[in-house]
């Protein structure tokens, strides 16, 4: 307590993010906290599925690798880790971290934030936000996790735990919680919570504010993306934040990268709902105060909503896919013929069916590419089905074009995926009880 400034790094912006940027941050970032945000909306449902198959799993698949590499650095430099890598099973994830610490001979404490799993409290008559139909109309519901906020994380920070491991929490809350806790901000001060949420939102995707997912070598060049640095937030007691990165890392931080990230996945810039506040992003000020350094102020907010968002995962059947390529003279015409053949043969067997021409129309449709004549085209066919017997059919049919289809087809591939759908409902926050469990190594 009593600090004037704290420094928080974000070393991962999704489950599969690079490993070494977080190590560079922990080693050279002069950090108080390191956040790893590894839990997208669908990721937790997939994790719930792994937990069902093995009750000892269901935490982030990279938890072990990340913690093994990071833990010695974190302990040496006294950096506290806050991460949602607990995913669907924070308790077992916590035990795994303790096991790693014991192996490394490090004495640590882990504070586990859970209670986000509300599967047993689901009201099946509740209507989904996406479609307005009740949950009972979804065939097989496999998971339900509520987005917890800073009120669930702060008690964990009040302990002397080295690592705070959570399941589903709102991404910006991973950053807002240590800020509120260190500065003793009033939880009723919506202006401060709104500004802190702006900072958390800018940080939560890690490399997406340091030039990742921004670069375009023609109009928006970003240097040294092979060693892209992840961001460091230095936040002052009044809520003003400065975002920068470790010297010597690649990337770019400026008003353009900040604006793209500020609006990323924001449904309403005047009212961004989190469990902590309804934040107003519309009057945020971004100032470039040096090379790769920006100052952020002007976030605002209104009191937190009474309801929390709950992500509900359900089995959505199978995606059956096949691909094959054509190149040279009449490549487009031969690919189109191949697509027509498959469509005639099997499209009616699937609930949804789609033919894409990679290189022509697979991303933006035919309209925007109608004058283009690419040298090579890749046919991609996809079908959705609830029937396991049909789940491999598209790939098989595309592969059979080798001997039955147009000339010169090459590189056939086939894929089958089980689909996990996610819908959302709102739940009264009084029905949800966050829990805290402490574990200690030997």
């Amino acid at each position, binding site marked *: 307590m009593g600090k004037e400034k704290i420094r928080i790094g974000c070393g991962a912006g999704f489950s599969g993010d690079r490993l070494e940027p977080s190590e560079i941050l922990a080693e050279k970032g002069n950090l108080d906290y390191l956040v790893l945000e590894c839990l997208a909306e669908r990721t937790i449902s997939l994790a719930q599925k792994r937990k069902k198959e093995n009750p000892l799993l269901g935490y982030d698949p990279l938890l072990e690798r990340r913690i093994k590499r990071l833990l010695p650095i974190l302990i040496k430099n006294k950096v506290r880790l806050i991460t949602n890598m607990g995913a669907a099973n924070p308790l077992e994830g916590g035990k795994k971290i303790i096991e790693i610490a014991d192996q490394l001979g490090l004495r640590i404490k882990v504070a586990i934030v859970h209670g986000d799993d509300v599967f047993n409290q689901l009201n099946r008559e509740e209507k989904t*936000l996406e479609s307005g139909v009740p949950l009972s109309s979804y065939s097989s519901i496999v998971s339900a996790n509520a987005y917890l906020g800073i009120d669930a994380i702060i008690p964990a920070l009040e302990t002397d735990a080295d690592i705070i491991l959570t399941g589903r929490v709102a991404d910006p809350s991973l950053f807002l919680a240590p800020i509120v806790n260190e500065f003793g901000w009033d939880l009723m001060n919506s202006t401060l919570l709104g500004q802190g949420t702006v900072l958390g939102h800018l940080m939560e995707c890690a490399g997406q504010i340091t030039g990742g997912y921004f670069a375009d070598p023609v109009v928006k060049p970003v240097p040294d993306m092979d060693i892209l640095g992840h961001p460091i937030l230095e936040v002052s007691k009044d809520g003003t934040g400065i975002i920068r990165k470790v010297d010597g890392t690649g990337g770019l931080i400026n008003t353009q990268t900040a604006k*793209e990230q500020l609006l990323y996945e924001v449904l309403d810039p005047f009212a961004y709902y989190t469990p902590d506040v309804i934040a107003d992003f519309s009057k945020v000020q971004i100032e470039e105060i040096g090379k790769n350094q920006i100052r952020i102020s002007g976030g605002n907010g209104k009191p937190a909503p009474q309801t929390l968002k709950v992500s509900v995962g359900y089995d959505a059947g199978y995606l059956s896919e096949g691909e094959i390529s054509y190149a040279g003279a009449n490549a487009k015409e031969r690919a189109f013929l191949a697509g027509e053949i498959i469509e005639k043969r099997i499209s009616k067997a699937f609930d949804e069916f789609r033919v894409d021409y990679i290189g022509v129309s697979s991303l*933006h449709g035919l*309209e925007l590419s109608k004058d283009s004549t690419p040298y090579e085209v890749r046919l991609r066919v996809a079908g959705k089905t609830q029937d396991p017997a049909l789940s491999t059919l598209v790939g098989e049919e595309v592969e059979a074009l080798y001997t039955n289809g147009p000339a010169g087809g090459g590189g056939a591939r086939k894929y089958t995926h089980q689909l*996990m759908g996610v819908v959302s409902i709102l739940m009264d926050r009084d029905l949800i009880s966050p829990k805290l469990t402490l574990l200690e190594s030997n």
Partner: protein
Amino acid sequence: MKTKLSKIAHGRAGDKGNTLLLSLIPYDPINFEKLVKNVTEESVKAHLSHQLKGEIKRFVLPELKAIQFICQDSLGTGVTTSIAMDTHGKSLSYALLEMEIDLN
């Protein structure tokens, strides 16, 4: 004279369920008003009619000099169940930037 948006603006696409979010940010703030005038809910809907199936709402942010479009029913049921190549619609930021406007 018609100019492609990609010459004067940049942006990022995001997704929430079956809702596509597209930001549009001028490189030079001087072009912000021209974007506000020309890149409207109607013109975006017309430009991407094959993709945008639902209601479109535009937020104009004069302090940030940015525009955000919220496009419902535009991701073929959304990232978790769509059978499209780009289930998130992440590449669609560049589809918006293909639009041409009159800069005069």
